[in-house]
């Protein structure tokens, strides 16, 4: 019986080694102008 389904997500600890390029779009620019959350910004490197 599968009691736990782990969804594939970006490993944040791993991203500490591979990330930090700064090329992603600045989050508030996209739409909201107020209560921005970065979680909805895609990564430029991974989406190439």
């Amino acid at each position, binding site marked *: 019986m599968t*009691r736990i389904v782990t*969804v594939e997500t970006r490993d944040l600890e791993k991203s500490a080694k591979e990330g930090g390029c700064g090329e992603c779009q600045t*989050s508030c*620019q996209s739409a909201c102008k*107020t209560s921005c959350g970065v*979680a*909805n910004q895609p*990564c430029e490197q991974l989406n190439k």
Partner: protein
Amino acid sequence: MIHCYQFEGLNIVLDCYSGSIHMVDEVAYDMIQWYENELADKVVQKAVEKHGISVEEASECLADIADLKTAGKLYAPDKYEHLAKDFRKKNIKIKALCLHVAHTCNLNCSYCFASQGKYHGERAIMSYEVGKKAIDFLIENSGFHKNLDIDFFGGEPLMNWDVVKQLVAYGREQEKIHNKNIRFTLTTNGVLLDDEVTEFCNKEMHNVVLSLDGRKEVNDRFRVDYAGHGSYDKIVPNFQKFVEKRGNLSYYMRGTFTHFNTDFVNDIKQMLDLGFTELSMEPVVTDPSSPSAITKEDLPVVFEQYEELARLMVQRHKEGRPFTFYHYMLDLTCGPCIYKRIAGCGSGTEYLAVTPWGDLYPCHQFVGDDAYKMGSIYEGVKNLELQDKFASCNAYSRPECKDCWAKLYCSGGCAANSYHASGDINGIYEMGCDIFRKRIECAIAVKLLTSGLEQPGEKK
């Protein structure tokens, strides 16, 4: 740190520091929470008693939980505080400017955070020379950044449209010379949105943000012209023509909800009925004493509305008529890295706002507040103490964020909201936090319910 919640038959477990997400059955939902603080034997015993399962079944579930812990996907410790201390202070380069091409507006929206586009100052239009200098300033200070963002904002940018077009042309010329890639965005109230603007936007604007509050009576309550007439009948046809020609290019219908329309899903539905599918809706930013301000008493309705919105999205997805809601967009596998999750929007450091006179502010929300003037495009950033303060402002700088499971989704929240609510950018805007947590719960649930993923074996 884990966060567990339930929505539409799903039991969801979020692991804050790994970014992991698990869908679990009722047994695992309990056992995961118990195992955070209790010993294995006790957890197994409680599961047997509560759920009527065998010791073997409970032990098997516990073994799976323990494996996830070993794999770093449950109860993962916080390993990022040192990144937060170091990252922002290194090598601050500018990658985004919000150009206030117009400190004036052709509407007179009473709830406007920018006092009807004037930002508590004089009306003004940005000259081409100032805008050109701003682009030069951006490129000169962009360092290693290849992707640069320029947002045309205001007031109402279309009141200075010729300069906008000239600045885009200049940007295109300069990006080739300096090997940069500039993404332009335009925000507009739609009053002057015509075919010529549309054609130019479709050629040059990476994204366009269109302001509409939803139902006619809602929109026209606040979004009026100087004669007091509502703007709905004027702007909706303009928006519909624009969106028809926009095709697959990015845009958002961006609405504001207030105390007077906490039932904002009805406004979302209106936008959908008008043919718009890329939507964004924000709570109003205003003084708490304003009649339009969202109150604490409004929150239960607002929370229920976010849940209703999530159900609507799932339903429309099943019907083959999906729509986008900005704050429910999540890329679980290719989302932002930990640095972005910690750092946030970049205000005051890599993202600055420029006034018509060339003054620099941390973002549009601080323009007009003299204490937050950072310098100018002529002298550069002069207020280094302020820059440092913003550089240090992130998911780890606010004491209240320490035990919040959502901090790596919100990056500590909006510095402007914190400042206006608490007097300090390192404070918090508590209502904003409550709303954000509900929103991200719903966003994740929508993602899980529309992903076609296999669900756990047994569920309510």
